[in-house]
């Protein structure tokens, strides 16, 4: 089995590029025999054909298919109209799922951008900038699963009186002797917040790196001139830096929104959605594999898409423009 998959992988790694090279070579040979105007019309399509074929089968068709499935029943045999959607917006469990996604959306995005901006501004003023930034960016390199394990260990809970092995409870009980150790992931009042903190810990480095680059792009002359006129650091930041980097803040915010809507791994690993911590992507997974309700799972996926569409349109506008410049 190991040998067979190794051979298969080596074949894929060398065979796929070789096959594609052969394909494009034959395309050029074949096209060269045609009349010049026909050549010019056909060649581009043959170059984009492998990509378009894969995108059509594995992205375009599934998106359309999922839209249709969301109006069908659990095993996709009967049309049931918008019932799945109605259930999403009336069922108690589903409303909790929507609430949790809203919590994530607002607080994760707000805190990540704010903390990322704060760190970007502060590291700009010290000598150990690179080291501090590398450390804070590090969680972006590891999997959400590993980050989930790391923080599950941070949140570990032992009853009062027993030595705490979770760092958070240990620190709090040492600093405040009257503090009651908390089961951070199991207490319904705080478990969602505990999960959101993990997301913030992972993504702050991302916001920081982009915002930091943008801050470094603020013209030095303007800042110096403001300081000469007696502006304090806070004034410089709020009156000059902030307005200039505003477009970058928007980019970071939309990127975080796109990602937070689909959040899955953290919740799956840390609580698996129990005790009112479920989010849309986790619920969709459960609808697929636990309840075998493919209609409902599809409706949840469509909900994610609908939430992202405005951001998607903004993206097309922004990236389209950037493409034109070249």
């Amino acid at each position: 089995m190991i040998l067979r998959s190794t051979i298969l992988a080596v074949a894929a790694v060398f065979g796929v590029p070789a096959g594609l090279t052969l394909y494009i070579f034959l395309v050029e040979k074949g096209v060269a025999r045609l009349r010049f105007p026909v050549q010019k019309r056909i060649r581009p399509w043959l170059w984009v054909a492998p990509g378009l074929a894969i995108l059509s089968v594995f992205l375009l068709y599934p998106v359309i298919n999922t839209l249709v499935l969301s109006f069908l029943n659990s095993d996709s045999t009967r049309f049931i109209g918008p019932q799945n959607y109605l259930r999403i917006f009336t069922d108690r469990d589903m409303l909790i799922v929507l609430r949790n996604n809203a919590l994530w959306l607002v607080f994760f995005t707000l805190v990540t951008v704010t903390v990322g901006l704060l760190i970007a501004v502060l590291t700009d003023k010290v000598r150990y900038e690179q080291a501090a930034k590398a450390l804070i960016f590090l969680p972006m390199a590891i999997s959400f699963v590993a980050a989930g394990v790391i923080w599950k260990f941070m949140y570990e809970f032992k009853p009062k009186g027993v030595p705490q092995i979770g760092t958070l409870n240990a620190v709090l009980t040492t600093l405040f002797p009257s503090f009651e150790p908390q089961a951070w992931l199991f207490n319904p009042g705080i478990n969602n917040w505990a999960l959101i903190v993990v997301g913030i810990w992972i993504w702050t480095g991302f916001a920081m790196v982009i915002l930091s680059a943008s801050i470094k792009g603020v013209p030095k002359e303007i800042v110096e001139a403001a300081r000469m006129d007696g502006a304090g650091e806070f004034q410089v930041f709020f009156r000059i830096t902030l307005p200039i980097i505003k477009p970058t803040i928007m980019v970071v915010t939309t990127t975080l929104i796109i990602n937070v809507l689909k959040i899955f791994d953290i919740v799956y690993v840390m609580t698996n959605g129990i005790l009112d911590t479920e989010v849309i992507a986790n619920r969709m997974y459960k609808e697929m594999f636990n309840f075998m309700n493919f209609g409902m799972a599809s409706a949840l996926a469509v909900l994610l898409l609908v939430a992202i569409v405005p951001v998607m349109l903004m993206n097309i506008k922004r990236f389209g423009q950037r493409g034109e410049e070249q």
Partner: protein
Amino acid sequence: MRRKRPTASRAVRFLRKSPIHLILLAVCVIWLVPTLGLFVSSLRPRALILNTGWWNAFNPPLRFTIENYMHVILQANMGRSFFNSLMIAIPATVMPILVAAFAAYAFSWMRFPGRDVLFLMIIGLLVVPLQMTLIPILRLLNSLRLTGTFVGIWVAHTAYGLPFAIYLLRNFIGGIPEDLFESAFLDGANHVQIFYRLVLPIAVPAIASLSIFQFMWVWNDLLVALIYLGGTPEVAPMTVTISNLVNSYGGGWEFLTAAAFISMVLPLLVFFSLQRYFIRGILAGSIKG
């Protein structure tokens, strides 16, 4: 006196900045301690992990062990999962590159009707949540008997990686100066020759960023592997194995900590050795569905 002044003013400056240093120190501690705690714990014997905090590890007598690592590698399927993660991630990184480069070349240097609309559609696909594709692709792979196989997940990851790959390479290849192409055409080179001799070598930095991003994305992915590979241990990558460990062991911290750290080794190596490409890739690809 004159010699002392710089030191004095430096000290003053340092003190004036002390709130900044304090905040940054706190931030760095918050970002370092969770990972450090995991790493230290992974090297402690079971009885100690479960009964005392990891910070006690530095009180004598020092008792560290690699037993946890031996156990998860040999008995908890982590050795096999490491191999599986490589088997999944390497082909899934290589496969989309040429496909995307062909398309990117055509989008940049050939004129055809509908070109711009097509490219905008691909940018739109970039942010489509991959949840939208899970059920139809699962059914498709099922009917081809490709669920639970590496081939199925390679193809899926290739497709998921394509919009970003085309977008990134198009921007890069589109930025190559036109003169280079003109002189090559005048020398009688055809598109294939230009692509392999001129475009690909120039695009190496972009392909490097792209490959690192795609490799890390696949390496760290949980959802796609869960859905298309199922729970079969023979093909499970590390992310799936670890999440199974979390569920089955509950408080088995001695194994979980070691397993999580094994999964982090390669990303950390990549991060520290190729930091520039890595950050560039992550920033560019962060909106990928």
